[in-house]
Structures are given as C-alpha cells and as structure tokens.
C-alpha cells in the first residue's frame, strides 16, 4: 500500500525450537522475538520498528502450556488468546481473564495473538493487563543463566515500555488462584464491541465478609501510562460497609486517582468520569 515504508532488507526469520536456542540468539544485535505477529507486523510496516532477525517462538513447546501448579495457574508466553478462552482451567479459576479476552480484537486476532505478546507490547489499553493486575500475577522473566519473577504491576514502565532487560524474555505468566467468595467485575468502554481499543476499562474483585469489605482489588486500563491498580480507592473501601456515601466517595477518589490523557478516542475528563461511573456501577452491583 502506498505511503508505507518497505520492510528492512535482508530480514531474517528463524524458527526457534527450544528455550536454549532462544537464549543463544536473543542477545544478537537487531534480534526481536515474534510470535503471533499481530502487533509486531503492524509496527514493522509502519516503520516504527525495523528488526533484522525475527526469532519465532511460536513453536517452543515449553512456552505453549497452561498448567495448574501449587495453587497457581501458569500460562506460557506463547499461548494464544483463543487457547486461553478454550481452557477449562482458566474458565473455572480465572473467570475475569476470560471475560477480558473475549472481546480482545477479533477472532482472527485472538487465534494468533498471545498473552505474552499482549503484555510485552505494553499498551496502556492491553486487554490482559487489568485482569492480571487484579489476580496479582507474577511474570517469570528469563535470560541466559538466570531467571526472576516480578509482579505484573512492576513489569509495565510506560506506554510500550517494560521491565525486560536486554537479552531477557517473558517465559511464563504465573497467577495465584484467588480464594473463593468474591464479586467479580470487568467492563471495557470502547466505540464498539469488536476490534475496539478501550477508552477506559475497569476490573474488580471484592471480598465482603460479615457485611464489610475484607479485601478490594480494583484495576483500570487506558487511563494512565500503564494499566494500574487503584490502590487509594482500594484502601478507602477496605474494612468498610458499602453505603451510598462510601460509593460516592469511591467514585470521586477513583476519578482523581487515574491520570488519563486526551487522545483520538476520548478526552481525559471523559475518561475520569467513565472510571468513576464504573466504580459506582460495580459497587451498586455488589450491594444489589
């Protein structure tokens, strides 16, 4: 199509067979990991990035499993969004992850796009970020000779920016299965249901015990440089009985706590309103 830059000449595509092979190649200059390619190809064609060697990890078996281990669900970075949606384990143990991914992109995108790719792309609007923040997911990052585990909150550093060091890759998303008895909530506001980049999204998990909030987790997407937990609003709710006054305060605080920008999709003021509104809607649902 006209106006688009040509791909870099002499691009190499290497199908990587194992994590060991990946670790050998990942430090090479100009190397870049590709899996589904749904974000990467768009960026390559727009000229935003121009890798020289694509390391294709889509067929590394060790990155393609969903497993239950010691009370946690572990999802390999190369598992596709469609595979997550089809997983019984995810449906039963992590319903909000499922809810958030159902409307990610389109069927065609979900058949190729992966959980690892959605995270590494680090869009403030990444659909998987809000549920993973709520579930206190840990990301296992590996490099030659070492690995580390960091909370998903610390992984996002800004739009398109992550905590990944050079020569390091995201191997596994490890999610503790939450204890039972919570009220779940996820709502994404976009222009349309499919293929919409969120204007704002809110997810929540709330445990009410003996009439008061025992634990509150709230996370929001598209309203700050990264998807974020609304920790001040969580603190406000914890230990309290949910009353109309508290709901009004929570609405106000959540709207203050976010730091949205005005862009082509919506204004900053509108996004604050939407987050406040979604918090109110959620808490009203909880009290029924």
């Amino acid at each position, binding site marked *: *199509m006209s106006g*688009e830059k*040509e*791909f*870099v000449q002499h*691009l*190499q*595509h290497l*199908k990587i067979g194992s994590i060991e092979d990946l670790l050998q190649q990942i430090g090479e200059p100009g190397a870049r990991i*590709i899996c*589904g*390619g*749904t974000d990467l*190809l*768009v960026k390559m*064609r727009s000229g935003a990035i121009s890798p020289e060697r*694509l390391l*294709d990890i*889509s067929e590394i078996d060790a990155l393609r499993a969903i497993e239950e281990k010691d009370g946690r669900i572990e999802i390999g970075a190369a598992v596709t969004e*469609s595979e997550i949606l089809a997983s019984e384990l995810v449906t039963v143990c992590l319903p909000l992850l499922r809810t958030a991914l159902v409307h990610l*992109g*389109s*069927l*065609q*995108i979900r*058949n*190729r796009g992966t959980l690892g790719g959605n995270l590494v792309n680090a869009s403030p609007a990444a659909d998987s970020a809000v549920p993973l923040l709520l579930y206190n997911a840990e990301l296992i990052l590996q490099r030659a000779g070492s690995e580390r585990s960091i909370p998903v909150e610390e992984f996002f550093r800004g739009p398109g920016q992550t905590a990944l060091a050079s020569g390091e890759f995201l191997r596994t998303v490890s999610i503790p299965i939450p204890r039972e008895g919570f009220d779940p909530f996820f709502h994404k506001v976009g222009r349309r*249901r*499919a*293929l919409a980049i969120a204007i704002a999204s809110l997810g929540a998990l709330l445990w009410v015990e003996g009439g008061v909030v025992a634990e509150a987790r709230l996370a929001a997407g598209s309203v700050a440089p990264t998807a974020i937990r609304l920790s001040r609003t969580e603190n406000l709710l914890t230990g309290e009985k949910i009353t109309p006054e508290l709901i009004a305060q929570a609405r106000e605080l959540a709207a203050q706590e976010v730091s949205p920008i005005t862009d082509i999709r919506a204004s900053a003021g509108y996004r604050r309103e939407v987050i406040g509104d979604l918090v109110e809607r959620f808490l009203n649902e909880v009290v029924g």
Partner: protein
Amino acid sequence: MQIRIIVNGRPVEREIEADMRLLDLLRDGLHLTGTKEGCGEGECGACTVLLDGQAVNSCLILAAQVDGKEILTVEGISKGNTLHPIQQAFVEEGAVQCGFCTPGFIVSTYALLKSNPAPSDQEITSALTGNLCRCTGYVKIVDAVHHAAKLMHQKEGRSRRAL
C-alpha cells in the same frame, strides 16, 4: 528461504523473502487473488484465510511463519466453478454487494459452520466481528449464514440418504 506449505489441498514449495506476508504469497506468488487486502493491519478481515483450520488475518502473518502448515483460501472452498453452499447462500440472500469483503466473510463463515453447524444470531455476529462490510450491511450477511447452515444441513442429509 525455502518454505513448504499446503494451499487448498495442494503442496506448494517456494523460495521467499523473510519479509513477505502470507497475503502477498497468496495473491502475488500463487495468483490466488480471492483473498483481498483491505486495511493491511488486521482491522477489516478482507484477507481472512484458514491456517490449520483457524481463521486468521493473512496480512498479519509472514509467509515464513506458516512453513509446514496448511492454508485454505476462498478458492479452496468452492469446487471448480461449483459454488459451495455458503457462497450459494450469500448470492441467494443478496449478501454480496460490491463483493470486496465477501471472500473474508465466506472463509470466516466456513470456519464457524464447521465447528457450529447451527449457530444463533449472536454466535454468528460474534464469529464475524473481525470482518467489516461497508456496503451490503450485516443483516443480509447474517441471513446468508443461517441460509448456508440450512443448505449444508440438507446437503448432508442427502448424502447420508445416498449411502
């Protein structure tokens, strides 16, 4: 680099550049021009093909990534000049106006009906959210998918009786 794939049931071996998209291999390399390029960034679905049975955007996949895999395009759905029941249904329901988006819709519908032979309205719109139509309108397209499901069901019944 050399790739070997199966396209519409036929083995294909090609020397390709690593930056070639699957869409370009199909259209320019194999002259299968039924698959269209609309947006080129995975928003419109005009380039939809099946990759190992799953609907994907061929504009967002490098040809190098599909080495060893099986591709089905709209050309592989019809039998020569005989229309597939899905194509017949789109014609009969008036679900083809300019026709540019149609191959993508046919391929997505094929994937849907293979796994769900009698989908509801909601299941149809959900399966087709990745395909945009700007002139025919979705009402006739959804009607056509229902009609196709019936035609395929009848056809299956006939071939069972013939046995």
